[in-house]
């Protein structure tokens, strides 16, 4: 295969996505690795040692290869004045596919992770209902459940991109407060119907059993839609850091309203105006009015490789890959640019995208050793197009730093260093 047969679809080396499949890797390998045309005399393959002795026994609980221990969430340093507060970020640059392993799912806590005995935990539904009810964990396990794949994103994710200067960061440090998982639980409407919601109720007020008793108000119409009481994540009980034994899950919406360690749902006429929906998680606009209850996360994508703080060691063909998501639907299109947004090419995404879930995208790109600026731009099933950073910051200002969903730019220099830039 020759270079001429790889169809260039946008400037600066982007190659038709169809080369990922069929023609794909063989052709790419030939172009990328001309050095393999001649055999390396020093490379004589032998049977390795692990093929000559029995390995470890099966175990009760699995662990990853010791060679992958460098895959870690990035957690900030503990703040003694804010015990248990903080977050940990998923290593987006090391992950593939669209499901985040539970051990690497991002976390955000407001007063640490409580150690909850499910036999002692209660979920109360009360307020404007015909019959206030209390549920045990054991009884909740007997309800009919649904399983859905959804993304979850902290509204503070990517917030540093509101700043005046681009931070030196990685896909993980800049964008790692997003993850994807299959969530299994009880439609919240089932439990609300059992309590019998009075017609004058307009909001649910959800409170967790952590030390902060973190609470959020959610409109009843949204709560009766696709919200679930999630008990399982990727098949296993929700982990303590994600709300064990149960959490609210509000698909597509800022992560904070998917209240973890859920213990109370109170139905009321008005929202409570909790601290985390007034002081925090609100968006002050340029006119100094502040938007409250800005729930759906914007149409967004980020290239996870090549990405910030990586280094391209040699010229040749790379798979540009990343994730895209929208709080308002599924991902229909992801375009990639290698010239800072002047020309674009369609990336490959899987044909059947779930609503409000991560979509993995890929496109081949030939790096010829020059400067490049890699960008991705998502379009969702509602026709929403991811905006440029400039247009987002011009519209929203940067008094608040929540809900950033602008286009990320990764610059590649002639040395192959990849860095976050504003382009």
């Amino acid at each position, binding site marked *: 295969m020759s270079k001429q047969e790889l169809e260039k679809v946008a400037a600066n080396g982007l190659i038709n996505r169809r080369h990922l499949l069929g023609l794909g890797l063989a052709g790419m390998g030939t172009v990328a690795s001309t050095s393999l045309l001649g055999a390396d005399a020093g490379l004589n393959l032998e049977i390795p040692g692990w093929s000559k002795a029995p390995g470890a026994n099966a175990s009760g609980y699995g662990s990853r290869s010791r060679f992958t221990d460098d895959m870690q969430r990035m957690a900030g340093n503990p703040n003694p*004045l804010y015990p248990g507060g903080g977050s940990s970020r998923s290593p987006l640059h090391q992950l593939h596919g669209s499901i985040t392993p539970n051990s690497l799912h991002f976390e955000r806590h407001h007063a640490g992770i409580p150690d909850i005995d499910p036999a002692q935990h209660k979920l109360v539904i009360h307020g404007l209902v015909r019959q206030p009810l209390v549920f045990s964990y054991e009884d909740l396990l007997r309800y009919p459940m649904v399983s859905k794949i959804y993304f979850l994103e902290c509204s503070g994710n990517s917030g540093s991109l509101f700043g005046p200067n681009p931070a030196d960061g990685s896909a993980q440090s800049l964008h790692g407060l997003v993850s994807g998982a299959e969530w299994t639980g009880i439609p919240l409407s089932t439990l609300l*119907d059992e309590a019998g919601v009075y017609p004058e109720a307009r909001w649910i007020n959800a*409170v967790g059993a952590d030390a902060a008793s973190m609470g959020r108000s959610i409109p009843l119409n949204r709560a009766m839609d696709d919200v679930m009481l999630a008990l399982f994540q990727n098949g296993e009980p929700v982990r303590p850091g994600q709300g064990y034994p149960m959490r609210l899950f509000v698909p597509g919406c800022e992560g904070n309203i998917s209240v973890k360690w859920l213990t109370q749902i109170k139905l009321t006429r008005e929202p409570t105006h909790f601290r985390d929906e007034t002081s925090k998680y609100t968006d002050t606009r340029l006119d100094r009015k502040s938007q409250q209850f800005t*729930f759906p996360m914007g149409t967004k994508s980020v290239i996870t490789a090549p990405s910030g703080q990586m280094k391209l060691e040699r010229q040749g063909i790379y798979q540009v890959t990343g994730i895209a998501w929208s709080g308002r639907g599924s991902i229909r299109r992801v375009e990639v640019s290698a010239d800072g947004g002047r020309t674009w090419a369609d990336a490959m995404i899987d044909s059947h995208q779930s609503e409000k879930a991560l979509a993995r995208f890929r496109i081949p790109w030939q790096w010829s050793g020059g400067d490049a600026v890699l960008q991705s731009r998502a379009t969702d099933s509602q026709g929403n197009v991811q905006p440029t950073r400039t247009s987002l910051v011009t519209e929203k200002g940067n008094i608040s730093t929540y809900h950033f969903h602008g286009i990320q730019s990764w610059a590649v220099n002639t040395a192959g260093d990849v860095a976050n830039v504003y382009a």
Partner: protein
Amino acid sequence: MFTLKKLLTASAVSASLVIGLSAVVQAQSLGIPINESQLQDFDLIAQPDGSGYPQGSGTAMQGKAIFERRCVACHGMTGEGTSANTRLVGGDMQSEERPIRTVGSYWPHASTLFDYVQRAMPADAPKSLTSDEVYQVIAYVLNLNGIIEDSLILNKETLMQVEMPNKDGFIDSSQAL
């Protein structure tokens, strides 16, 4: 199994036969009835309309002593904070430069201050303050911001009447698609 007892419970709490039947179809109705009076110590929600405020009272003068004992490590001697996140006092939403957002300049409802302190403060020992102490300490924070007089006895009636400077500063976007 859907037992007769459960069926009777479901029917008893149902306003109509239709709901009783739907409970049968669901075959699960496992919530245990409870009364609001049994939730008095459990439900900490305090709303702007005055619902959920406990009995008790306090003044800023009383709150100063508690604040200086329990709050200053993070919030500073007079609420100036040890970081932007812990600053409680000052700021102006209409300032030329980027506004400093605090309890005084930003929070739209005094009820939020009660609700948050009661459920989550102090950070190293949440829920360790009595209701009187919560009224006292929030009276002090409101007084530091010049929102109430230092002689005002804050209680469920007077708290409901406290007007925050930024009360009209928020737009409800909850129904935006």
